[in-house]
């Protein structure tokens, strides 16, 4: 099964050929179908999310492979404080330094972990990075002009939730939950294996990361834009009437919409009149930590069991924190 002879390449052409034929048949034969508002909305949404994520995924992949090729293994672990509480604070601050959107986060974090970053610090970084940075803070303030306290609360809650989950992971998880074990990682093998020096090696690794993440990204984008195209947000808003229902609804919405953390505040602000502000917080804190494309990417990084454990932790921590925050707001 290890050789890929030209004959075995044939199945590769089938789906591509099918898609091409389907596409071409679509074009001249069924102009009405092309004018379909759903097709347009689907394509516009899909390409939009994909293009939006592309620079961040590339940046994350590039940073990760630069780390891999140029930074020695011990360096990262030397920077990280040994004790859990300072280490968690370090994880939160890292988000301020690397304002990478959540899509670029996963390849970077994987590399950092292979370089010796402890699991719980990595988790804190994944969770806080997309929220605790100046860009997102500014965008949230602009979106909630009349309610600046929501922007402060968002930052505070993100910090709290990330730290608590970091501590829980520190206390409960002992074995490495990474999908690919670190032992197979021999630094020298790869430096010899690429032709054309270190620079070429960087780009070869970047493209490997890109394809690794890209498949989850594309599936996530497909699902998200499908949901956006066919889901009627107005009809679901009826759930918002019930006090707890509104929290669950906004968190579910954050999960399926998969918005970028810099723009979700504006979407949240359109719900300001209809939903309690605590549920808007839940929307803005959960979304960047956990959404459709993001959870697929997390599943590629971690073993399934741990990934679901993490999803559960995020979901319950955000829920409890935002309900408590609404009492104070």
């Amino acid at each position, binding site marked *: 099964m290890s050789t890929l002879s030209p004959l075995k390449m044939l199945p590769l052409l089938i*789906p*591509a050929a099918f898609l091409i034929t389907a596409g071409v048949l679509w074009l001249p034969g069924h102009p009405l179908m092309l004018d379909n*508002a759903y097709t347009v909305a689907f394509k516009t949404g899909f390409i939009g999310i994909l293009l939006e994520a592309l620079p961040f995924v*590339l940046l994350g992949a590039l940073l990760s492979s630069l780390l891999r090729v140029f930074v020695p293994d011990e360096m990262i672990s030397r920077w990280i404080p040994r004790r859990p509480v300072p280490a968690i604070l370090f994880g939160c601050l890292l988000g301020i330094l690397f304002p990478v959107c959540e899509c670029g986060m996963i390849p970077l974090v994987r590399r950092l972990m292979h370089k010796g970053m402890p699991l719980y610090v990595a988790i804190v970084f994944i969770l806080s990075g997309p929220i605790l940075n100046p860009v997102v803070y500014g965008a949230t303030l602009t979106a909630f*002009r009349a309610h600046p306290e929501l922007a402060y609360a968002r930052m505070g809650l993100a910090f709290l939730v990330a730290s608590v989950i970091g501590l829980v992971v520190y206390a409960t998880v002992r074995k490495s939950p990474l999908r690919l074990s670190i032992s197979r990682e021999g630094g020298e093998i790869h430096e010899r294996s690429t032709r054309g020096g270190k620079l*070429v090696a960087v780009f070869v690794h970047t493209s490997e990361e*890109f394809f690794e993440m890209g498949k989850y990204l594309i*599936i996530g984008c497909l699902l998200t834009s499908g949901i*956006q195209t066919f889901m009627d947000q107005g009809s679901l808003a009826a759930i918002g009437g019930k006090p707890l229902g509104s929290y669950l609804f906004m968190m579910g919405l954050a999960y399926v919409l998969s918005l970028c953390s810099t723009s979700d505040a504006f979407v949240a602000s359109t719900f300001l009149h209809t939903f309690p502000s605590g549920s808007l917080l839940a929307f803005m804190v959960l979304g960047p930590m956990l959404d459709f494309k993001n959870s697929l990417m997390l599943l590629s990084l971690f073993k399934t069991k741990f990934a679901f454990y993490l999803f559960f932790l995020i979901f319950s921590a955000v829920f409890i924190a935002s309900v408590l925050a609404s009492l104070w707001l």
Partner: protein
Amino acid sequence: MNDSRSIRLHYGFRSLVLLLFALYIGHLVQQDALHYYVAPKLARWIRLCPVPLALMALSLGIQALFGKSTLLCDCEHRLPRSGLGSAMLYSLFLFPLLLGFLLPDRSLGSEAAAKKGIALSYIAEEAAEHVKFNAASPYLEEFAELAGKLYAQPVIQVYPEIFSETLGAIDLYKPQFEGKSITVTGFLYQENGKGAKKAFAVSRFLVQCCTADATPLGILLDPATQISLPADTWIEVRGKLHMSFYQGKEVIKIIPDSIVPVPSPSTPYVYTNADSVAAWAEIHESGHVAK
């Protein structure tokens, strides 16, 4: 583990896919179609993407053609083993490209606006009761100042550059703007209701990052207006502002004097502006010079 021959093939395919992605972005830039999908501030970054993509394709190409067989290895990143796995992987990557190249670039319309839920009021009710153009909180100062400038105009022009800010400013001081004349361009939004009386609005999509976060904004058109134009037609509405109620909320509406179809603008979406007052002054100045 794959042998070196199949790794070469994989590298070759990947190089091709990366090149196609770079070409697609180049195509979008050349057709000036990026604005259908992302906001300008993000488009800057996407324009740069073909550079790393091409470099990646080149590096993979070099490995595929000239890499020493004994040194090619996929020990860390697992390449798909079976033909079917590869086929799935690459057709997944080809799918967005096919969609992108084969379907026309279009902007979102009335149907999508109805699905997303159109916003007809922007400011929390408790914030709206203010002394004339005097902001209670520093965050509303910009809107207050803009509202003051707009109020001084005989006819309020809603410029697309500051569309959301203008609507926000008017909405903040609804009572003061009662009866003012306004001119606004947007697509005709038609409510998706089942009843005979469907609400109409003149609307634009506000895009922050990309079309996933596009939020439809609009001003309600007076329900008494007879409108025979199909939804999604681009229209210029001239009329007077009035307060109204829509689904139990206080909103602004336009009682139109005229509704004229206009060609669709080159940039269908609107974006937020960091300093709407300065932007307004600039557009206003240049408008006067043009006249």
